[in-house]
Each structure stands twice: as C-alpha cells, then as structure tokens.
C-alpha cells in the first residue's frame, strides 16, 4: 500500500469503524465532516508517527494538515523526505 492507502485504511477501519460503500476519496473533507476532531487527530497522529517513524512538530499541528487524506499524505511525505 502507498501512503494514501495506508492512511485511508486507518481512517476507515479505526476512525469510522464501518465499511464504506465507496472508498474515501483523497480530497474528502475529514474535519468538516466530523470524521477527525481534536481527539481523533491525536489518535491519527499516533498512528502516523508509529507507522512512518516520524515526529510531527508543533508548527505542523494545524487542522488544515489533517483536512483530507491528500493533505495528511503530503504532510507525512514531507517528513519522510
């Protein structure tokens, strides 16, 4: 799985807790739809940091970086590089 697929899989199974008829799109709004909130983002961060061996620092802890699978993947890939 690539970065986006790994993130999509985690959000679908661990945050939505239910299978979707159609997979979450890369640009689906996660914050506006309530899938990710202030508590959920910490769970997601824990997963991202452990899975990709990264440590997201203070200035990147911004809601817009977690607004979609696309923005999350961009953030992760920036740290991986």
């Amino acid at each position, binding site marked *: 799985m690539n970065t986006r697929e790994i993130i999509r899989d985690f959000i679908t199974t661990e945050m939505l807790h239910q299978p979707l008829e159609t997979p979450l799109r890369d640009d689906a709004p996660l914050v506006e739809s309530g899938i990710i909130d202030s508590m959920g983002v910490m*769970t997601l961060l*824990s997963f991202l*940091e452990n899975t990709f061996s990264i*440590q997201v620092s203070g200035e990147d802890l*911004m*809601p817009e970086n977690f607004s979609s699978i696309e923005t999350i993947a961009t953030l992760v890939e920036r740290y991986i590089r």
Partner: protein
Amino acid sequence: MDFSFTPEQTAMRKTIVEFARRELNPGLEERYRLGVFPHDLWEKCAQMRLLALPFPEEYGGDGFDFLTTVAVYHALGYACKDSGLVHALTTQIICGIQIWLFGNEAQKATFLPELASGEAIYAQAITEPGSGSDAFAMRTTATHQEGGYVLNGSKTMITNAPVANRVLVFAVTDAAKKSFGGISCFLVQAGSAGFSAGKPMEKMGLRTLANGELFFEACFIPNSGLIGREGQGAMMFSEAMEWERTLIPACLLGELERILEEAVKYARERHAFGQPIGEFQAVSHKIARMKLNAELGALCLYSAAALKNRRKRAALETSVAKLFISESLKQAALDAVQLRGGYGYMTEYEVERELRDSIAATLYSGTSEMQLNILAKLAGL
C-alpha cells in the same frame, strides 16, 4: 522496560523530599485554614529550580528530560503535604511546555526564563461558566483588529488566576470552524487594559491553591501575543493534556504512597481488641489495596512518562494514568480516614484534608468521566 531511577534522579528525589519536609510542610495547617497562596514557598520552590527542570538551558531552564521531571515531581508529591502548592507548580510547568512547544523564538526567549525562575506566575485559562468538560464550547472570543486581537468573555475556576502575572487564554477566533481550527491561544499579561482577575474562590480542598475568575472586556492582544498559529488552540490543548496528565499523576502517586506509608504505620501502632489493628483483615485489605494501586499506578505513570520523554503520542497512556491514579488516591484517602475511625475525621490527623484534596484530583485536568470517554473512544467506540 526498566523504570528504575538513575543515580542522579535518585539523588534529586532525595534532595526534594528533604526540602519539602523541611521547608514546605511547616505551617500548612494555618495556611490551609486561611486559604492563602504561599508566595514565600513558591519562591523557595523556584530557588530549588523546581520550575526550571524540563526547559532548555538557553531559555533559562535546567535541561533535564521529562522523565527526570516526572520522577522529581513524584517525590515532591510524596513529601509535600501542601497539595495546592504542588498543583500550582505543575500548572506553571504545563504553561511553559506549551510556550516551549508552540511559541516562536521571541516568545520562548521572553517568557520561558521568567517562568522557569518563578519570577512570573502563569495560569492556563480554558474553563468557562458555561463550558467545563465540554471545553471547546467556550464563548470567549478573540476578534481580529489591526495589529492584533480583541478578547471578550470570561473564564472561571482557573488555577493560579488570582496570583498570575501571565495567562494562556484559549478563545474562539473562528466560530464557523467549530472547535477544531476555530480556537486559538493567547498570552495575556496582568495589567493589560480590559483584563481583570477575580478574588480566589473558596474550595472544599486544595485551599492554598488560588483558583478564580478572569474577565476580558475589549482586551487588546497584539499579534505577538498569539501562541502558535491561529486555529491551533485545540491541538495545543490536546497536546498539553498529555503532558499534564503525566506530570499531575506523578504528584498524586506520591501522595498515594505517603498515605499508604502512614496507614501502615498507624495500623502497626494502633491496638484494638488486644492486637495491632493491622492484624484485622478489614484493615489489612484496605492497606493491601492501597499497595496494589500504588504499584500499578507507578507502572501506568512511568509507561506514560517514558513515551512523553521520547515525544511520542500517549493519549491512551496518559488518560489511564490520570484516571487510575486519581481514583486510587481518592479511595486511599477515604480508606485512610475509615481505618482511623473517629480520629480520621478530626482535622488534627490530616487525613481528612488529604481526602478533601484528593476529590479535586478526579475533577481537574479532565474529570474521571471524561477520561473514561477518551478510553471508550480509543477502544473503538
């Protein structure tokens, strides 16, 4: 995992225990009765560098790791019977961690040295009259104005508020974005126009801790007072809670260990029906439960602390530590009263004060019910 203390940590803990017993405990009964914040003891703690421990030396700190800070505050909680003072100190550290993690260079250089030296007292203002556990339902607003923001609203039950020189205030900057992205954090300085603090609120326990209201009426905060970025407040808060729910339980675990130690001593010395009361299972099982919880609490605490020491996320571990240790402390304090019978109810024997203080531990920094909500969510609900 090896949770044993290093020789340096052991030496620091010993020093703090001796310091607390010698300098912080005398006169507590009178201070507690009067309900006054002990400025003189705050200064002594600052001189002992208790407020400087985790911060980098370049910002006036002593550069110890977080694990060492936790180990030292664990010892402080054990030896210092003034739980209000201990809580005031931890609040200062948590404010500093937020500035350290999210502040810009100028803010760190300006504010961390005065925080680490204790010269300025800090508070963190989130709770409002209409929003407690539902913290992000806050109504205090920060509206854009040229060069900064204008704060309007009020906060309540804020630790250190009546004595604070600086306050980290969380306010709504964009109501449309709801809590996640709509809340920001500002540093407000005492004496700012439109900012005022109420008198200390009377409490059933922690009476040397100053809690109170804060009022913001068209209080202008320059852009330089924004901590982190606009909209980062909720994430800052969530991050801060992990550190807070490690440092505070460290102190609570120390209290629990002290209550256990004193209960054992009492159960050995007090005789009834021709034998030490510790020989009766009704007493010994209460003490055994304290011991069990102290041992498990230490595992919870240092498991969380080890993660935070490596800057890892620890929402689960810190909630477990906060919930388990605070509830264990409350139960231990209640049992400590019960096993002393009528003497336990008398103020002279101190355990009734520890019981009153312990109740607060299950309320502040997220009630036990909120910790269970977090755990339920992390369990997959």
